[in-house]
């Protein structure tokens, strides 16, 4: 179990770094969403299902959505 | 009337008058004159009532009540009498003279506050009261100076307030160091505490207490504010600034050295030639002040600047006389203080009258006003005779006593400086006389009239005082001896018209008779002689060239050039530059911070945050 957590955490860190180094903003945003999603899993494993649900809905869904909207309204408009 | 009200009546009336002023234009000036006249009357009735009790007001600060004490002594009576007297004369003068002046109402408001605060400073019975009113005095005079019409007034007042504040903060620091040990600000308790401390510590504290007074008195090396402030202040305020404000600084020095007898503590320190080192240095500074003021005064082209430097040099005399702390010196200092106040106010008022009519302060732009403004001319003439120290005026007597004191103690250098200043004063006071009043009238001043009567009145009063005290110095000596008795200084012998010096007696009545005789003789010769020929001012010859700038050829321009040339290198080494450089460096440092820290980039700010944590963590907060 511990190894699984550690791997998840490693994955989270890697997606976090990836979110920062990707050139295309869309990829960054999706990576950031990944981080939130993994965090939601971690919350679940930490016996916090309510927080996990909130994180999944808000962190992964809502945040990513508003990032995408912002991107669309700014530099993404041309694409 | 309670002493407390003397300080608050002018302040309260000033605010009432300020609001009245919107409706009735002259109400402020007239109301101020009436109030000052009333105060003057009340204060003159206080003479000889030295045993009226102290008054206290409690002011809750820190965690206890602090008593603000007001008390009356012969010393403080002298100063409040002079303050209200000078204030009254100037208020009367301003009724007419300020009709075209835009900042009139602010002038009167601040002037009344200033008078009230000076009364507070002088009547204060403890250091905190002194400090509070001292600050109010500084601030109101700051506003008065910066309400001058010239642009430079703002810079001058700036320099004034910064220097004064530095002084005041030194004083407050010293006061609170003492307060924390004895929990009182009373004069006697502070003195008693200081005499119990180790000598170096108490001397440092005494110096810190003395510096604001020395700054206000315009003594070298803090004289840098004086000329700017005097020359740029409103023309009606310069007389007060020079005549009285500088003297309040002297009051502080007297207060510290004699009234709160810190001199007794200083006596135990290192002595040099029979004087405590502090006093000796003060005397030397006074002497430097005399020389600097004189040399710089001679160079000036602007009449108000010239008189301002003359004030500096005269303050040097007073400081010198007080610092040598012999009975004769003390008497001479106080005499000169009173007399300087009288004649310097006269000079500045007559100059204000000239400015009122000609609207300029440049000497080379005036000339020949003697026929147009005879009263002003007479006032100026008598005042400069007093300033130069020629009998039968009051200025002579006080200078005579000071010389006696200096020579008696054998301070050759100081005596030479005093003589130098005296001779220099002949030169610089003669310059305005000959260039403003004598010489030829400028074409544009053809229609000038004498100033209105209300402006002449103060000048008449002051002229009368100059001659009165010149003939009957005993009037002043009476009060001075009372002060001396209060301060445990041996009184100087005197009668109504004579003073006993170290090397003999001065009898002013005899001298006065001689002078009157001489004057009458000269007058008869003048009447019987042939009239001189008048030449037009622009009737100047050059060698065949057309003159497009006759101003530069005016004889008043660079009047004492040969003399100035001797001291050119001295005058170039200005203290002002040092002060300014220091201030500029601080400003530059600030600019450096601004440009390098506040970059405007949000990311940099975030980085500072991280850096801040890291530095704190490794500077010992955590590790």
């Amino acid at each position, binding site marked *: 179990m511990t190894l699984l*957590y550690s791997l998840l955490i490693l994955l989270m860190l890697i997606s976090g770094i990836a979110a920062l180094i990707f050139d295309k903003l869309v990829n960054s945003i999706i990576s950031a969403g990944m981080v939130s999603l993994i965090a939601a899993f971690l919350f679940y494993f930490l016996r916090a299902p309510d927080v996990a649900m909130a994180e999944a809905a808000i962190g992964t869904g809502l*945040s990513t959505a508003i990032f995408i909207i912002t991107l669309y309204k700014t530099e993404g408009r041309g694409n | 009337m309670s002493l407390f009200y003397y300080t608050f009546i002018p302040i309260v009336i000033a605010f009432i008058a300020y609001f009245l002023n919107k409706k009735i234009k002259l109400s402020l000036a007239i109301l101020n004159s009436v109030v000052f006249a009333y105060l003057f009357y009340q204060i003159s009735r206080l003479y000889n009532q030295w045993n009226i009790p102290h008054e206290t007001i409690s002011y809750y600060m820190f965690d206890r009540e602090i008593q603000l004490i007001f008390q009356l002594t012969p010393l403080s009576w002298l100063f409040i009498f002079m303050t209200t007297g000078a204030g009254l004369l100037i208020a009367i003068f301003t009724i007419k003279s300020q009709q075209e002046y835009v900042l009139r109402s602010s002038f009167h408001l601040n002037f009344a506050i200033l008078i009230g605060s000076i009364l507070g400073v002088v009547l204060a019975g403890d250091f905190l009261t002194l400090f509070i009113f001292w600050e109010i005095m500084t601030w109101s005079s700051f506003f008065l100076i910066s309400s001058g019409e010239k642009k430079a007034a703002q810079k001058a007042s700036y320099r004034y307030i910064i220097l004064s504040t530095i002084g005041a903060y030194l004083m407050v620091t010293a006061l609170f160091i003492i307060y924390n040990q004895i929990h009182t600000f009373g004069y006697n308790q502070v003195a008693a505490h200081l005499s119990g401390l180790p000598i170096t510590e108490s001397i440092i504290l005494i110096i810190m207490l003395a510096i604001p007074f020395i700054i206000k008195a315009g003594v070298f090396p803090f004289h840098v504010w004086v000329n700017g402030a005097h020359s740029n202040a409103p023309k009606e305020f310069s007389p007060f600034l020079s005549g009285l404000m500088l003297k309040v600084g002297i009051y502080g020095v007297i207060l510290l050295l004699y009234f709160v007898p810190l001199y007794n503590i200083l006596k135990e320190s290192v002595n040099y030639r029979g004087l405590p080192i502090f006093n000796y240095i003060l005397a030397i500074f006074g002497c430097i002040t005399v020389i600097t003021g004189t040399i710089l005064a001679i160079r000036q082209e602007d009449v108000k600047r010239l008189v301002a430097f003359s004030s500096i040099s005269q303050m040097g005399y007073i400081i010198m006389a007080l610092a040598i702390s012999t009975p004769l010196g003390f008497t001479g200092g106080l005499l000169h203080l009173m007399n300087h106040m009288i004649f310097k106010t006269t000079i500045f008022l007559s100059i204000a009258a000239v400015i009122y009519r000609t609207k300029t302060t440049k000497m080379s732009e005036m000339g020949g006003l003697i026929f147009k403004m005879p009263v002003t001319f007479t006032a100026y003439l008598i005042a400069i005779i007093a300033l130069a120290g020629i009998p039968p005026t009051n200025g002579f007597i006080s200078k005579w006593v000071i010389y006696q004191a200096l020579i008696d103690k054998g301070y050759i250098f100081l005596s030479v400086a005093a003589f130098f200043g005296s001779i220099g004063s002949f030169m610089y006071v003669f310059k305005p006389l000959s260039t403003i009043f004598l010489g030829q009238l400028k074409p544009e001043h053809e229609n000038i009239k004498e100033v209105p009567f209300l402006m002449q009145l103060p000048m008449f009063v002051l002229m009368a005082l100059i001659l009165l005290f010149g003939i009957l110095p005993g009037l002043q000596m009476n009060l001075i001896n009372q002060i001396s008795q209060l301060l445990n200084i041996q009184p100087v012998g005197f009668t109504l018209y004579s003073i006993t010096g170290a090397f003999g007696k001065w009898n002013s009545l005899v001298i006065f008779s001689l002078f009157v005789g001489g004057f009458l003789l000269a007058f008869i010769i003048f009447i019987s002689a042939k009239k001189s020929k008048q030449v037009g001012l622009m009737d100047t010859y050059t060698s065949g060239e057309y003159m497009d700038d006759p101003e530069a050829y005016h004889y008043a321009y660079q009047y004492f050039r040969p003399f100035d040339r001797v001291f050119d290198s001295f005058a170039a080494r200005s203290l002002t530059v040092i002060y300014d450089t220091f201030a500029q460096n601080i400003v530059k440092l600030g600019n450096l911070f601004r440009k390098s820290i506040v970059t405007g980039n949000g990311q940099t700010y975030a980085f500072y945050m991280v850096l801040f944590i890291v530095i704190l963590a490794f500077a010992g907060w955590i590790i």
Partner: protein
Amino acid sequence: MIDFLEKWSFFGGSVLLILIGLYGVITRKNLIKIFIGLSLMDTGINVLLVSLGYVEGGIAPIITSTINNNSYNFVDPIPQALVLTSIVIGVAVLALGLGVIIKIYEKYNTLDISEIRGLRW
């Protein structure tokens, strides 16, 4: 190794995530990336808070059908409540920030933070 991971993986991982986010905020020039960095920091702190309240072998502090008499066996609910609040606050700030970013883009026509320096000194 496993012991070390068990003890430190959540703590270390969340702190590292915060530091990664911080690094992103400080180094990335693009405003959206900066806000991604901020949201990473938020996520990191949330994981940290929850892991601080985690009790080994405890059960979730929610009412379930399983009967549990041992009240010490619950995972501490307070940090979870804190994290819920913090998530909501975080997303509110994020939304506000992104709204401001849109306005900034309309005004400056760039998302490069080093070019948005009208206010300085």
